[in-house]
């Protein structure tokens, strides 16, 4: 072991992390129990996995007691009295800095601008660093791609950095090896490659937008003229690229200007979630939708989709349509808005006759201020039709601009992957370098990647995890996380951001740039130098300038800003050629269709090891820790399926078993299954969770599969949701019980724009309902100092869950695992409630974020026997963890049920790699303690102290709660209610402001702005 340990030592990691890495349990240095295990044929692991199923957070719940435990408990229970107080604290020595680094004040976090690549495209970030440890990701408010917002993926990325299941050392055939060994081995192979001009060398990456990386790859290809570079992104944008090529004759990227769009038509698109520009689009869309008074105006959104989406939740008109029928609708609409040559066709069944005409009229009426968008799941023809429509509507150059492609080397990635497989299969590939990809898991089922890859002599995998692909490679090299490595990336509008690391690689990981440098023989080139050199060359060539003269200024400014000045692409003049759009390919397929979508939590599956995302309730279904076959209530009834029935989905000889989940809002005869699940090697968290939809995905039909057959099995599978969806039948009308009650109780208040204009008070409670004056206790005077409050605009909240993950990161919230979520013990302080209204088959879905309402008359406070939850003079409902004895009375008496209880020890106090993850300003809670949203009191206190030191008051907007800061649509606003000019005071003064359960006289400090709908009067119903 001793020798291995020495090899293991990472070069640059902080000393405590070296210790973490050197621990045998966490390192890849493994012990073996038998020859079989040592040889690693997997049989032992399989047997062990069978006996000790992984993929769940260890549960000590009901049923967790075995004979040994029983004996222990019996012994322990005899000696319980008095023993609990004996905690021996480990000795700890604190050594101060001899030389204090500049700007480095213990306890004061620093923020660094960087960017996160997601699907190859960047989002500008600002990352909080405590004592050199990144703990929280925020959007960069000055960055065009986010304007300060982030999404679930950005928020959760910090957990991936500290994931204990990350690959921690280079490994050769699954055994720990050293860097030097790898470089030597690689060098030997490259000598051979060099002699043949690199004919046997292939590189496979995801989509690459990084200019430096592309430049490096190009240099490598120059050195090895015979080598090839392949790209494959499992949830990539092939259709969008091909669509632009069809329409414009060349690849182009579309950038939407939703701040200018009055009328938006979304054709099976979730443009506010997961796309390169989503954060910006959501921000701009919300900006056009925000109403300050009844005289204001709002944009209008038509959403056509087969399954409820985050974007569709804000639609004024949502049309449920099978994804395979959208093309027909697009053609009909194209001809209605005056696109010639698109080939008009009859509108597909299920679309009301007046719908197309009404939408087309609305779009035409807003020439230059309307926008048609479509999603990556739609075929290229629809993308091309959309380009043609936008051109016909005069939107090109107005609400949508076309730019050069973001990708450094745009290509048909599915074809690129197929080419690689063909070459491998033909034995042409001798050296294969896989960087940040996992094709064995996510390649289309008709592309036999594994079989072909096994013909390659030398396979190297650079990745964060030892995943399915890594396990089949000769070498696995730990990849540096984006928070650990230098790099650059292009964002949705072409803007380049320099990725600057926040921490030295925890496990000595290398970035793709460094891997390329090694391939080029520059063994010790640092990524920092590579990136700097590239931009120095660009600056010298005069292609970029920023921050005055000199490269140092340029570099400092770019790093400080978080983007490189002047790199945003200029709009291109592009004329869509409608004539090039192929005519309708085939008649619309009848029967069931299956739509495969990236998971709203795990995306393409690369995030499967992230427990925050696994436990995140997925939008609308509120499913956690699983994917399921989503099906409409009507279709389910027709097929005789119930929730949790396991069905076999059969497509062209392939099949997959998945449990059924009945979701109102799903189009008839359309099934949805999320990708990203069913991983077989994704650490303790992600392995074996859900069904792997890639196993039925083909390169020809990557998203929409028609002609699907379902075979019912007798099995059932338990699905776990955080919100129960009870479908009930009353008076012959089917509906959802919780939603019925929610509207009955006016939990969600919705009106149309016209209703609001004619009766601005529509959302208010009847005057006799509030009992403001009646209280046994004298009222507290909040008029002095600060008085904190929050306003949530239901009209802009899209229910994207970003706030939920932000809260995880900010407040050290524990993950409890599937079983405990099933027991009703999820720990999220903020949740997105979903209610459906109307017909079950065609409902409207409403999201409502729910968190502690910070009642002025808080029902939780007066029932606590020990005063562990108390009120601050500023109106905060505080939770004193170390005073809490855990009677749970406060939660029982909370009418909003926003309190969360540590029924067991949920926080992970054991795993060393999680120590630096935690926000040091927030207590890590222990067992038996109640917790809840604090309005991020640590942020309030920090800012207040700062303001007091500077002898001033806290300014409006100076304190942002974590949920508010991350919200892409700025739906959450927090501030001082005693400041008449604060944003929150003005929002609360709006007449559609309402508080939940005001009739209980709780006087909530969190209030909601009623949802407004802006329907087209031409469309009935």
């Amino acid at each position, binding site marked *: 072991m001793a020798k291995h340990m020495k090899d293991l030592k990472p070069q640059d990691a902080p000393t405590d992390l070296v210790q973490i890495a050197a621990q045998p349990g966490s390192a890849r240095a493994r012990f073996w129990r038998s020859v079989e295990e040592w040889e690693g044929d997997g049989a032992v692991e399989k047997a062990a996995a069978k006996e000790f199923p992984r993929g769940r957070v260890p549960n*000590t*719940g*009901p*049923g*967790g*007691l075995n004979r040994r435990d*029983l004996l222990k*408990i*019996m012994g*322990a*229970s005899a000696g319980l009295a008095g023993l*609990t107080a004996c905690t021996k604290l480990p000795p700890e020595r604190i050594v101060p800095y001899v030389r204090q680094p500049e700007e480095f004040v213990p306890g004061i976090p620093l923020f660094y601008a960087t960017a996160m690549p997601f699907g190859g495209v960047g989002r500008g970030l600002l990352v909080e660093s405590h004592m050199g440890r990144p703990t929280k990701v925020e959007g960069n408010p000055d960055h065009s791609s986010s304007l300060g917002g982030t999404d679930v993926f950005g928020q959760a990325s910090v957990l991936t950095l500290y994931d204990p299941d990350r690959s921690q050392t280079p490994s050769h055939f699954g055994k720990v090896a050293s860097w030097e060994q790898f470089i030597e081995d690689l060098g030997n192979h490259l000598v051979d490659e060099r002699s043949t001009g690199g004919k046997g060398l292939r590189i496979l990456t995801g989509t690459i937008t990084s200019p430096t990386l592309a430049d490096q790859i190009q240099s490598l290809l120059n050195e090895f003229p015979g080598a090839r570079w392949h790209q494959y992104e499992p949830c990539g944008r092939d259709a969008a690229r091909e669509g632009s090529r069809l329409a414009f004759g060349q690849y182009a990227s579309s950038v939407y200007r939703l701040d200018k769009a009055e009328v938006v038509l979304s054709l099976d698109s979730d443009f506010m979630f997961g796309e390169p520009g989503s954060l910006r689009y959501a921000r701009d869309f919300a900006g056009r939708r925000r109403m300050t008074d009844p005289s204001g105006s709002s944009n209008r959104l038509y959403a056509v989709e087969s399954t409820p989406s985050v974007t569709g939740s804000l639609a004024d008109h949502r049309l449920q349509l099978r994804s395979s029928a959208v093309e027909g609708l697009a053609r009909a609409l194209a001809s209605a808005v005056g696109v010639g040559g698109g080939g008009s066709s009859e509108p597909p069944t299920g679309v009301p006759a007046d719908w197309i005409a009404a939408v087309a009229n609305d779009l035409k009426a807003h020439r230059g201020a309307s926008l048609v968008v479509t999603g990556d799941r739609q075929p290229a023809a629809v993308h091309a039709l959309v380009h043609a429509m936008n051109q016909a509507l005069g939107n090109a150059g107005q609400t949508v601009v076309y730019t050069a492609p973001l990708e450094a080397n745009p290509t048909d990635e599915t074809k690129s992957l197929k080419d690689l497989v063909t070459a491998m299969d033909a034995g042409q590939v001798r050296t294969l370098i896989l960087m940040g990809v996992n094709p064995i898991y996510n390649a289309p089922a008709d592309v036999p990647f594994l079989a072909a890859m096994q013909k390659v002599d030398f396979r190297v995998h650079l990745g964060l995890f030892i995943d399915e692909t890594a396990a089949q490679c000769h070498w696995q090299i730990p990849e540096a996380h984006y928070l650990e490595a230098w790099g650059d990336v292009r964002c949705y509008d072409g803007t380049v951001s320099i990725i600057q690391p926040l921490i030295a690689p925890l496990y000595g990981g290398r970035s793709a740039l460094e891997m390329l440098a090694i391939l080029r023989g520059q063994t010790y080139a640092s990524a920092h130098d590579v990136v700097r050199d590239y931009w120095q060359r660009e600056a010298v060539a005069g292609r970029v300038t920023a921050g005055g003269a000199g490269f140092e200024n340029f570099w400092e400014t770019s790093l400080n800003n978080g983007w490189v000045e002047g790199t945003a692409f200029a709009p291109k003049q592009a004329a869509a050629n409608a004539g090039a759009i192929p005519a309708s390919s085939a008649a619309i397929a009848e029967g069931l269709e299956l739509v495969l979508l990236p998971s709203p939590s795990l995306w393409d599956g690369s995030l499967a090891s992230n427990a925050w995302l696994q436990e995140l309730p997925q939008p609308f279904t509120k499913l956690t820790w699983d994917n399921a076959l989503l099906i409409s209530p009507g279709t389910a009834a027709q097929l005789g399926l119930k929730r949790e029935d396991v069905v076999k989905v059969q497509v062209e000889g392939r099949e997959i078993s998945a449990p059924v989940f009945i979701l109102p809002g799903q189009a008839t005869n359309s099934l949805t299954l999320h990708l990203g699940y069913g991983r077989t090697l994704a650490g303790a968290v992600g392995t074996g969770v859900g069904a792997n939809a890639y196993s039925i995905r083909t390169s020809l039909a990557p998203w929409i599969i028609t002609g699907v057959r379902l075979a019912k099995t007798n099995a059932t599978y338990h699905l776990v949701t955080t*919100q*129960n969806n009870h479908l009930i039948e009353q008076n012959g009308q089917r509906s959802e019980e*919780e*939603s019925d*009650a*929610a509207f009955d*109780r006016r*939990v969600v208040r919705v009106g149309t724009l016209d209703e609001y204009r004619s009766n601005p008070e529509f959302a208010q409670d009847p005057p006799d309902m509030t009992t403001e004056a009646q209280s046994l206790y004298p009222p507290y005077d909040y008029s002095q100092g600060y008085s904190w409050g929050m306003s949530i605009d239901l009209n802009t909240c899209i229910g994207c869950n970003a706030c939920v993950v932000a809260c995880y990161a900010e407040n050290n919230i524990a993950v409890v695992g599937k079983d405990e979520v099933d*027991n*009703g*013990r999820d720990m999220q302080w903020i*949740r997105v*409630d*979903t*209610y459906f209204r109307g017909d079950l088959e065609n409902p409207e879905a409403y999201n409502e974020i*729910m968190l502690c309402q910070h009642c002025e008359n808080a*029902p939780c406070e*007066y*029932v*606590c*026997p*020990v*005063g562990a939850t108390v009120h601050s003079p500023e109106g905060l409902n505080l939770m004193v963890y170390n*005073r809490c*004895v*855990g*009677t*749970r*009375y406060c*939660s*029982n*008496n909370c*009418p*909003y*049920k926003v*309190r*969360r*209880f*540590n*029924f*067991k020890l949920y926080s992970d106090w054991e795993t060393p790699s999680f120590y630096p993850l935690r926000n040091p300003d927030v207590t890590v809670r222990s*067992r*038996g*303690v*109640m917790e809840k949203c604090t309005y991020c009191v640590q942020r309030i206190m920090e800012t207040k102290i700062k303001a007091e030191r500077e002898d001033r008051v806290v300014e409006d907007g100076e304190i942002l709660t974590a949920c508010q800061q991350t919200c892409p649509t700025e739906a959450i606003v927090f501030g001082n209610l005693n400041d008449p000019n604060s944003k929150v005071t003005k929002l609360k003064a709006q007449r559609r402001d309402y508080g*939940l*359960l005001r009739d*209980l006289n709780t006087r909530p400090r969190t209030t909601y702005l009623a949802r407004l709908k802006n329907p087209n009067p031409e469309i009935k119903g």
Partner: protein
Amino acid sequence: MDPVENDKLTTTAVVETDEVLAPGQTYRSVSDRVSDMVLTWPVGIRWLAGLAMALTLLFILNIALGWVFTIGVGVWGINIPVGWGFAITNFVWWIGIGHAGTLISAFLLLMRQKWRTSINRFAEAMTIFAVACAGLFPLAHMGRPWLFFWLLPYPDTMGVWPQFRSPLVWDVFAVSTYLTVSLVFWYVGLLPDLGTLRDRAKKRVTKMIYGIVALGWRGSAEHWSRYETCSLLLAGLATPLVVSVHTVVSFDFTIAVLPGWHSTIFPPYFVAGAIYSGFAMVLTLAIPLRKYYHLEGFITMKHLDFMGKVMLATGLVVAYSYVMEAFMSFYSGNTYDRYMMMNRMTGPYAKVFWTLIFCNLVGPQVLWISKIRRNPWALFVISLVVQAGMWLERFVIIVTSLHRDFIPSSWGMFYPTRWDYMTFLGTLGLFFTLFYLFIRFLPMIAIHELRDLVHKTEHEKAAAAH
């Protein structure tokens, strides 16, 4: 057991009687009968078997609580929204059962009801044991039970006090006061009998033990005089507690804003329910006791009849409360209250609700029939039904109110785990262990009061003869 003694025991009283004391009892006969049950050795096989069963259940409690304290209350089925489950149900149930003892011994003493004499001692013991069982639950249900003393107003160096607006703090005072007063009252009542046992014991060790616990009782006139005064004072002190304890327990619910809890009818309704279940428990214990210890002469048909009537009366109060609660839910026009009541009657826990209605409302109506009230085994069955019903009542109040309250997204379900059942069964073990030990080592019927009753009965007879 000595066959002669055994024979004597079986032959003395087999005749059912309608008096509060079977005819023909003398000072000596009552003293012999009761003290022999304690002083006769060896113990009977039935007692041993019963104790063994109780100890088994106690052992289960040991495991269950050990697991709860080791892992946390998460081993139970509670969750958010249902933060209280079996533990608080059991607490309220046991506290309720504990009411009958004090009611019988104190309240009926003040009312000069002489039929209380032969049942008050074991009813009081039952009270104390029930309160002991009840007391376990608030402790065990805490997230951090080792900090239980934070609910007590002790001089903390941080100057922190309990939060006196919380009914849970009132609970601590109410229950601990009740336990203290009940214990003192019971012990004071035991003193003359402990003296008797000391005097009648034959073995030296036994004499010494009873001598120590008898606190030097000599039976002098002065002792008796002070004893009577003390008893009356304690009875006066205990009587309001009968009403106050369950009133305070009901505040745990009424103070909350929750539909189904927030109701002004709860205090009287809870007190009536407590007496209802308490008398049911007294019957549950008395009927087998009189059968196996042949105490038909002391615990007579009249006692059973009276207790049946008390159950009927309190049961009707409870029934009235149910009806009014349902009526007010609808009459109030409050959406949440209406939904709560509809959900109780038709929701996921409807079966539990209707079982409770049968157990507490419908079933016990047979007590109108005098024959039933005088049939020990029928009464025994009814007493069990009522106790089951009262347990379900608390379950329904707690769980159905919590599981669906105001904001529909937070609705959930409560499913008890095996640890829930084990904790409940375990406290039955604790209760019966204590009770088995009690009937073996202490006189289960107050000897001196029986002697007093013999005296009074004879006096009355003599007066009638004149």
